[in-house]
């Protein structure tokens, strides 16, 4: 009897993914452990290993198929000696099963249920269980595309999500039909120079680009941002960093700490000191997080991703530094697991290495704040009524005003600056 190969769940929260590529063809012999396909979720690409031996008899889901439900049958394996005829009747059954059996919801462990859950990107239902008004067609399209209906603005009656809204969320032009005379608009909007070699090149949106566009648009449209900036003197920090890194080099301790590693630790410890800033707004309740999980924006080809250092406040500089390097490396290779970038309670974005002095970042919902870090540079400062030179770093905190007010945000930043300017206190 043929062995079904099913769509694997790459993380506890994954409900579906895209079948990016088949690495084996029909008829290929497969041994356990062989990489047979690549699966793509919204951000990461993962390899699927064979667990059984046999011949890859039939590929049921073609590569490039999007929104394949977890546990649906993607291919059939025949064991050695089995005839092709064993597939008869089985394929249809497998396909029907794939079509009807939506991925069983991954059972959450009690601890996870008790902990403040953070809605992830691809869940097709509202995280808080509230009913989202949507047309049946919009529901199905959202499910197929892995769009969370709760994140889509409905333009129908009473905010009902309709087809056009899903298409907009996916960055598609509305497909068909609407407005017969639209083509004859009296004031045609012309982008660039139409026609010929001068016409703009159309670059299809990648999956990650679509997600970034949707998430950031949501964030800017739905989260009332405000911004707090502060200058931090980093001379002591730089001296301490130099000392620590020299020690590591001399004694082969295996770490090289960056300014950013200090920033990550300081940001985490400051959240511990000002726990009211470690929050997420939801419609029903304010979630006050009991863990400090800092997401760090990492630039990758075609976009960015925010891997998370879990329990950041409990990790030392060397641990943070090494974990960050490892996560950033895998992020650039597109090999992060979804749970490694989904969640987090606070974000940091650092553009100092690009010479940026200061900037304001967009909040990564449902997080309550993001810290934008500029370069460290020598600036004139006034000290005891006289001009002096100090190495300064400007940070800007973007805050969700629904969850955190100005005074609280300022209190958090002050705690952050205290740690940065007196890095010895980070040991406490």
């Amino acid at each position, binding site marked *: 009897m043929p062995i079904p190969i099913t769509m694997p769940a790459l993380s506890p929260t994954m409900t579906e993914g895209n079948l990016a590529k088949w690495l084996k063809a029909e008829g290929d012999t497969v041994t356990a452990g062989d990489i047979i396909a690549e699966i793509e979720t919204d951000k990461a690409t993962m390899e699927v290993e064979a667990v059984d031996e046999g011949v890859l008899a039939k590929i049921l889901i073609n590569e490039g198929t999007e929104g394949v439900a977890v546990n649906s049958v993607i291919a059939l394996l025949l064991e050695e000696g089995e005839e092709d005829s064993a597939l008869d009747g089985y394929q249809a059954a497998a396909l029907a099963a794939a079509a009807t059996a939506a991925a069983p919801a991954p059972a959450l462990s009690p601890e996870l249920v008790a902990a403040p859950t953070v809605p992830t990107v691809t869940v097709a239902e509202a995280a808080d269980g509230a009913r989202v008004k949507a047309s049946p067609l919009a529901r199905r399209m959202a499910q*197929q595309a892995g769009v969370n209906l709760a994140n889509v603005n409905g*333009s129908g009656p009473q905010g009902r999500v309709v087809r056009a809204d899903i298409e907009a969320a996916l960055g598609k032009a509305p497909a068909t039909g609407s*407005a017969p005379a*639209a083509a*004859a*608009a*009296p004031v045609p909007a012309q982008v660039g120079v139409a026609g010929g070699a001068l016409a703009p090149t159309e670059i299809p949106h990648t999956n990650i680009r679509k997600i970034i566009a949707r998430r950031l648009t949501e964030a800017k449209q739905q989260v009332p941002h405000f911004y707090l900036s502060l200058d931090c003197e980093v001379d002591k920090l730089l001296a301490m960093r130099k000392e620590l890194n020299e020690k590591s080099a001399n004694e082969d301790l295996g770490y090289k700490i960056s300014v950013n590693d200090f920033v990550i630790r300081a940001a985490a410890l400051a959240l511990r000191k000002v726990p009211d800033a470690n929050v997420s707004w939801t419609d029903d309740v304010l979630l006050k997080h009991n863990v400090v999980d800092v997401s760090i924006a990492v630039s990758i080809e075609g976009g960015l991703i925010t891997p998370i250092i879990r329990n950041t406040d409990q990790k030392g500089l060397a641990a943070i530094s090494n974990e960050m390097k490892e996560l950033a490396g895998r992020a650039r290779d597109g090999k992060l697991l979804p749970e490694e970038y989904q969640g987090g309670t606070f974000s940091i974005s650092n553009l100092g290495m690009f010479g940026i002095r200061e900037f304001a970042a967009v909040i990564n919902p449902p997080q309550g704040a993001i810290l934008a870090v500029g370069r460290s540079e020598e600036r004139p400062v006034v000290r005891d009524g006289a001009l002096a030179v100090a190495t300064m770093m400007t940070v800007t905190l973007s805050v969700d005003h629904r969850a955190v007010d100005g005074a609280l945000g300022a209190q958090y930043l002050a705690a952050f600056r205290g740690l940065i300017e007196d890095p010895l206190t980070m040991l406490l």
Partner: protein
Amino acid sequence: MADNNFDLVVVGAGPGGYVAAIRAAQLGMKTAVVEREHLGGVCLNWGCIPTKALLRSSEIYHLLHHLDEFGFSADNIKFDTKKIVKRSRNVADQLSKGVAHLLKKNKITVIDGAAKLAGKGKLTVENAGKKVADIGAKHIILATGARARDLPNIKADGKLIWSYKEAMVPEAVPKSLLVIGSGAIGMEFASFFGQLGSDVTVVEILDRILPVEDEEISAVALKSFQKQGMKIHTGASVDAVKTGKNNVTASIKQKDGKTESLTVDRVILAVGITGNVENIGLEEAGIKVDRGHVVVNQWLETGVPGVYAVGDLVGPPWLAHKASHEGVICVEKIAGLDNVRPLDITNIPGCTYCYPQIASVGFTEAAAKAAGHEVRVGRFPYLGNGKAIALGETEGMIKTVFDTKTGELLGAHMIGAEVTELIQGYGIAKTLETTESELMHTIFAHPTLSEMMHESVLDAYDRVIHF
């Protein structure tokens, strides 16, 4: 008139214009309608409504010829053309008066005459060549409608070669009739006169009749009309007509290139319509006209601030309900209401009241494929429906087209008894964006013709029960 300044003035009181005016009045706008001829427009006076009255008569006549089937007998069945026409005119009059009443009830000023744009926010109205009013309007909706198109080589003379207008008030049923054009108007008249005994020939330049309908529906219709005795030439054209004293000789160029001569009592020209774009000051106002129709955007704006256009004037589909809906969209957008949605052409049903009736909404199978959809198609014949058999109406079918991936109902195409009433079911389904699943879960009453709508959906998913 004391105060000739309005929030909104609608030019034309057809189904686009008068509905826009009533909606505007409901929203508190001081509203006027200018109409040069009849309240209710062509639809009500010379189109949809009086033809339905005529077709009711021909339907009864048709039934009278099948009395035996139902256990009756009668001799000497006759009809009086004058009475049939008179009834049709009475129906139109009654409804036109009804529109007058509705406008009055909504406190809408009605101005008789022909309006012309006269600068920003201004209109002049003439009646019988004399200026009767200067009107100020913050917003102007042009809803002047359309009229039958002539062919370059064949013009309606109103005596031997009829447009829809003369065809609606015949003194007698012509013994033989040539209908040029097989769209809704052409086929309704072909059906009416055919059932009353005319020897009807239809010439269609495209390769099938009712060319806007799904190909399968065209094919079923062709078979049915031919069975009724109509002669139908597709891919053919009328090259020339020669009018005699009381007949017309037409030379018909057939698909194979051969020319055939046909002498008939009367000709009906039904080759489409063209917008009434003349003499309303469009050019002076700088309003763009393209191939006989005013160019507007999705909110019915002409590009000249404060001037809008709706209905037949802005192009196909030339349907009263499309005009009315545009009128409402236009007014609600002017009023700044939330949740105004542009017209979705794929949600406009189209009905042809010939025998058998034809109705459709959305994409034909071919159009769906052309738009890039992978489709699932369902069909169900009248022959498999209990109610249809009981009614003695076993001719026809219902076809549904779904998107394979999303299950979206892309289109529905029907031919047979009462399909013009059934189509709304699919119209609602489309507007609510249902998929096949909701249609399958809907419980259809038994015994009804509507059950076929269910079965057609089931058939698209290989689950049909009764066939």
